[in-house]
């Protein structure tokens, strides 16, 4: 009986599952069509899409960092503070050691991530609480170290004023503009895809999210693995910080405020359950892109910023309500 009703209805469980798989792609298409209809050429112009291509990479890299952590069933809400910290150390590194000192920014991100992982694994404090504390601490450290001032990246060696630190690095500023930043993002995305979908490490991310007790029972050191995951996520945040430094042209103590929420939203829009065990790099890219497009489209359509935040929240709930496969998730909390 149930069989006949199911086969008669258009939305069989199998079709529903297929549809769910495509939700991020359908959502982004609808969003693009909607803003095209509303704003026409002002939205669908080469200039605007170039702008979107410049806006998305930082968020995308942060979403990659979040994706790694979320796949294991943990969460990292310290990435906004880590972004500011890493960008600052990247800029300091360039002041101290020249261009190659930018690497310090990536390493700083990895260090913060590793500290997160160590606290979570060794003190056994839940990731949410640990990274919440780190969000506060790391931001405070940035403000203390920077003394509230920014370090600017400039086109030439002529320094602006006496109080302002600046580094002349035209190459870095050009990395933050359209073709370069886009190519860099594409290369990182490709690496991330291979890393997440094809390596033993990436596979283990999903397995830890599925049932980490089983992994311990077969002799896998889950504690060490989790520290590595948070460190890897931190390195990705450090890379995002360097990209942000290039794009913004400055390391400011306020950089990346609240951006951890955007990164989580991008991952969730990409259909990844925050309970872990599943995830997709391609859909996370789509999620980050959708978020950027919605912000951009609402601004062009003249929606006041506070209202566009409301619209983003509604979009997030709608997308997850449709895309989350509840049969794959045991408990909703």
């Amino acid at each position, binding site marked *: 009986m149930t069989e006949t009703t199911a086969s008669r209805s258009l939305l069989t469980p199998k079709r529903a599952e297929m549809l769910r798989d495509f939700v991020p792609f359908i959502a982004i298409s609808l969003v693009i069509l909607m803003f095209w209809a509303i704003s026409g050429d002002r939205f669908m112009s080469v200039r605007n899409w170039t702008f979107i291509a410049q806006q998305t990479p930082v968020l995308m890299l942060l979403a990659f960092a979040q994706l790694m952590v979320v796949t294991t069933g943990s969460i990292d809400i310290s990435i906004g503070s880590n972004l500011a910290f890493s960008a600052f150390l990247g800029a300091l590194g360039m002041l101290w050691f020249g261009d190659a000192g930018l690497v310090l920014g990536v390493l700083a991100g990895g260090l913060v991530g590793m500290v997160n992982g160590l606290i979570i694994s060794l003190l056994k404090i839940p990731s949410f609480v640990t990274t919440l504390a780190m969000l506060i601490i790391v931001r405070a450290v940035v403000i203390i170290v920077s003394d509230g001032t920014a370090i600017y990246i400039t086109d030439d060696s002529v320094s602006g004023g006496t109080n302002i630190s600046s580094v002349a690095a035209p190459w870095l500023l050009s990395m933050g503009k359209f073709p370069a930043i886009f190519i860099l993002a594409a290369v990182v995305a490709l690496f991330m895809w291979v890393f997440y979908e094809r390596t033993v490490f990436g596979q283990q991310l999903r397995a830890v999210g*599925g*049932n980490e007790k089983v992994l311990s029972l077969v*002799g896998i050191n889950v504690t060490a693995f989790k520290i590595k995951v948070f460190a890897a996520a931190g390195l990705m945040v450090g890379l995002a910080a360097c990209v942000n430094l290039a794009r913004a042209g400055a390391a400011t103590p306020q950089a990346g405020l609240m951006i951890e929420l955007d990164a989580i939203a991008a991952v969730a829009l990409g259909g990844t359950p925050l309970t872990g065990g599943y995830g997709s790099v391609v859909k996370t890219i789509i999620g980050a892109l959708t978020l950027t497009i919605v912000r951009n489209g609402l601004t062009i359509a003249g929606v006041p910023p506070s209202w566009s935040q409301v619209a983003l929240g509604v979009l997030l709930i709608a997308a997850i309500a449709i895309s989350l496969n509840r049969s794959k998730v045991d408990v909703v909390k």
Partner: protein
Amino acid sequence: MNDQTARPLLSVRNVSKSFGGVQALRDGSFDLHRGEVLAIVGSNGAGKSTLIKVVAGAHVPDAGRIVMDGKEVPRSEHSVSHMQERGIEVVYQDLALVPNMTAPYNLFLGRIPRKLGIFVDERKMRSKTREVLAQLNVTTVQDLSKPISSMSGGQQQSIAIGRAIAWGSDIVILDEPTAALGPNETAEVERLVEDVRERHGTSFILISHNLDQVRRLADRIVVTHHGVTSREFRRDEITSDRLVKAITLGE
């Protein structure tokens, strides 16, 4: 069918284990011979799980000896990986599989083959999985890219047992292998155990609450009571009365 006078494959002697002052296991002892199915029965909290976790290397015992093939396992080698190397595999109740991962992943759990050091050798995993499933006569698992949570309980248990035997282990410990299964799937798993024992000469340690199953599968039965392995029975000397008394009263 077993020469009881021959040296046992595994010999557990007076093993004890406490957790935070509570003694979970006291003087646990038993022998296991090649190709034998030994059942360990006992009420909840009688120390069965602790005993098998000690044998599997997941717990280091406070006292006692474990002898394999006549050689004592040194304390320093009392770990899951060392016991696996010695040929002991466990199928834990509810804890055997990673539900969101595929059958090949679960079969290779803890032994994922690598390409170039970091990549998953997916091809090797698939072909070995098909090989193992064929060995087990499991024909119902077709799509190897699906997570095992989408499979039936019997199929999942087949994969768990498949993992235990796929690596040529001599001893497989089954912890309540059919507790969560229906009658048909229970029969399927029991057939699998009989089959593997006959064809590969594998020894099994069976933990079960199902006394009918114990009598169907086991050659000998060890009863644990309040953390002590109290009695040993041969299959033919068992009436259910005596077994139930031993389990509940320790007689």
